[in-house]
């Protein structure tokens, strides 16, 4: 069973909308305050990356129900420039924009499952899941 809702990311306020959506779903699914904060922060990172590096894209929230386990999946998709070296961007401190470079590695630590798929010139697809315990 999957129910998905999405926010199109075009400007900074869409990042806030995406966070709001994620927080609401997380609350509904029964995540506690710490996990709610982790999920909204992860959404914020991924949505901002779309805004900064791809210009536009989509951020979707999936409610998961697999084998009695409940989860929330963040899907961040864009058709931007893509990431040439995935290993590098997953290192702490790597940034091409003078940022902290803690976003992607941070999201991996904030969430339980993390998957990144990107091809230069085609775009980026990042999925991160948090399971309810």
């Amino acid at each position, binding site marked *: 069973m999957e129910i998905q809702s999405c926010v199109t990311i075009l400007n*900074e*306020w869409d990042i*806030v909308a995406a*966070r709001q959506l994620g927080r609401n779903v997380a609350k509904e699914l029964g995540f506690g*305050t*710490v996990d*709610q*904060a*982790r999920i*909204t*922060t992860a959404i*914020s*990172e991924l949505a*901002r990356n779309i805004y900064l590096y791809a210009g536009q894209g989509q951020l979707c929230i999936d409610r998961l129900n697999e084998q009695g386990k409940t989860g929330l999946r963040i899907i961040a998709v864009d058709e931007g420039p893509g990431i040439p070296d995935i290993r590098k961007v997953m290192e*702490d401190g790597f940034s091409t924009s003078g*940022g*902290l470079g*803690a*976003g992607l*590695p*941070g999201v991996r*630590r*904030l969430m339980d499952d993390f998957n990144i798929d990107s091809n230069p010139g085609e775009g980026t697809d990042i999925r991160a899941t948090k399971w309810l315990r």
Partner: protein
Amino acid sequence: MYNEIISHIKNRKTEIIEEWIDRVKEAADERMISVVSEQVFQGTSYEFVDLILLNLDENNSEYKSKLEMFSEKIVRLGWPITFVVSGLRTFTHVVHDDLIQEKKISKDREGEYLEFLDNWLAPLSNEIIHTYASTWEKTVSLQKIALQELSAPLIPVVEHISIMPLVGTIDTERAKLIMENLLEGVVSHRAEVVLIDITGVPVVDTMVAHHVIQAAEAVHLVGARCMLVGIRPEIAQTIVNLGIDLNKFITTSTLRKGMEKALEMTNRKIVELEEVN
């Protein structure tokens, strides 16, 4: 055609409006029906029909100002624009159907009449959409100003200690203001310790952290020390997960603890007065 349609609508006003209301209700979803009060809905429908009759009846200037007033009223009612626009289309069809049903138009001229009705009601529809759009624009720009006003004040609480309470989302524009106000305030208040209170910031991601770190470094450069206070437990957790190093800062969980610490750093403390008997 004009006069024909006018007199038809005038003669069958009640029937047409009732049919119209029924159809609009049928098409609207439940959420909408609960929002729109029956009475207001009825009243507005009659008002609308009087307005379009005026459009045909009288010269344009009065009609124009009445149309503006009507549009504004519709917008104030807070009805969704899709509801209003599809309602207008439904009206066209109701009148058309009624003309046919009452055998006012022959089969071969049906299309012609529909086109006429459409053209006649289009400017009305446009005016209402225009009013919606400009109302929204106004609201958005007012809210932008309101947001700026609640931006980032630096408050000199006691000598040498200033506090900047941050409430709400921090975007790039606000981050700039935070920096400016901090530096300006530190100098003009002669602050030695500055407390940045993030109790009211809902999400602390790497961008917010980055701006706060930069601000603190800048404060340091002008000779003051910066403290990050109001770090809620869940925010502390996410900051650790993100791998952001705040070791360079003095941090406290509450503003109160921060204040005590700041007093200590400036060689002061709060004492309770002994009761005088």
